[in-house]
């Protein structure tokens, strides 16, 4: 099964991060903030509607990042407040859900995670918060739970790209833009995550190297 993404991008060598940088700066220049007051009000309503539509997806991403439901609640709330405050920075014609995801991610990275680390609270194990209670133990569900746990057990940097690329089905380029990292970094994180997942998915196989 091949996981298809939105479009086929040109060759992207992991060793040439400059490629993604140039693409990104071109994109970001499109995101010119509008200052017109009427547009701001229209935007605020549009953002509010978009938030309402994507709340559960944002929450799911927040759970993937934080491993904790209550932190996810707070993270989504902070994302809503921030998005509404910055409604006039949203560029029309771009994907609103991607913009919201990137706001949530930057709040997580810059505010929530660092604060929690400083407070020394640490993080709970993936199993503690993500067990699908009340779900029937059919074979499918057991397998789904197993996949979920394996992804959640990956280091944060890896599970984030796996989630965005394979669950949210973003292209590599979109993942790179959302996380504000070079596309080569997306590729190397996915490769490392895939090698780990493959090793546990096929217990009979030995992890070798092609190089």
């Amino acid at each position, binding site marked *: *099964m*091949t*996981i*298809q*993404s939105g479009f*086929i*991008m*040109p*060759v*992207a060598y992991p060793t040439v991060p400059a490629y993604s940088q140039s693409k990104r700066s071109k994109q970001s220049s499109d995101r010119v903030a509008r200052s017109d007051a009427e547009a*701001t009000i229209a935007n*605020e309503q549009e953002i509010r509607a978009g938030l*309402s539509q994507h*709340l*559960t997806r944002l*929450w*799911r991403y927040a*759970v*993937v990042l934080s491993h904790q*439901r209550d932190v996810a*609640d707070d993270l*989504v*709330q902070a994302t809503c407040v921030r998005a*509404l*405050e910055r*409604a*006039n920075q949203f560029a029309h014609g771009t994907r609103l859900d991607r913009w919201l995801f990137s706001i949530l991610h930057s709040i997580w990275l810059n505010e929530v995670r660092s604060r929690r680390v400083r407070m020394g609270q640490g993080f709970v194990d993936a199993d503690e918060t*993500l067990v*699908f209670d009340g*779900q029937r133990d059919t074979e*499918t569900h057991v*397998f*789904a*739970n197993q*996949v*979920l746990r*394996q*992804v959640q057990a990956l280091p944060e940097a890896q599970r984030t790209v*796996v*989630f965005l690329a*394979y*669950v949210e*089905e973003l*292209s*590599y380029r979109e993942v790179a833009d959302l996380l504000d990292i070079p596309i*080569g970094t997306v*590729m190397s994180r*996915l*490769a490392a*995550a*895939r*090698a780990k*997942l*493959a090793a546990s*998915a*096929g217990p009979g196989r030995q*992890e*070798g190297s*092609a*190089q």
Partner: protein
Amino acid sequence: MTDPNHNAMTSDEMLVAYLDGELDADTRRRVEGLIGSDEAVADRLHFLAASNLPFKNAFDPLLDKAPAEKLQSMLAGISPPEPVRPPVNGWNRRGFLAAAIGFIAVGVAVDRTFLGLQSGLHGDQDGSDWRAVVAQYMSLYTRDTLGTGPVDAALQSAQLRDVGSQLGLALTPDRVQLPGASLKRAQMLAYDGRALGQITYLDAAQAPLALCIVQSSKGAKAADAERRHGMNVVYWSSDTHAFMLIGHESPDAIKAMSDRIRQSLAI
């Protein structure tokens, strides 16, 4: 194998990008060629392909786990951001500071203002913190925020029932009706992780008015009055809840309405 980029072309990164359909046609052909000619590369691809897992299926149930209603009411409770408000009507932080200075000038005791600011900075020590937050919220409300259209009585009853059940109070339109004011809606907000019920009205002058309730175990307290963000507040507590009524009407009118609420809720 003569390809100078052999290592780069057969790296895990490239093979995973191949599996993900992220390579352009030319690179894809080159990688395919190497897979066909180099058994080690083919084996590695086979190994990596074992990680083609049903990720979407695994994570989709999490969407149903999301507290959708709670998130929606949280979103509904976020007032329009300050920059959007016309400066004439809106009370932004600068406005709040100006008001604080104004209060001092008209003779509000300095120590009281100071205490108020302190509790804002150092947490909810005397129970006034939530009132400060509610007041700031309410200062952003206009008549339009609450809607000027006809009200749906059945919807209001349902909203009140829901808010009441979350707070542990029996709330009905009759019990929260205020003389001269029209009930607009009831919704749940959150303050510091605690449920905060907000019942909004338009007063006789069509200005926003709200009864807010949080669960509180700080003990019963008789009604007291204060002024926040240019509005009049009457607040009191029962053994189980803290209440505040906030609006633009005169202190006496707000006090009279709060008496009516205390009576009808028997608190």
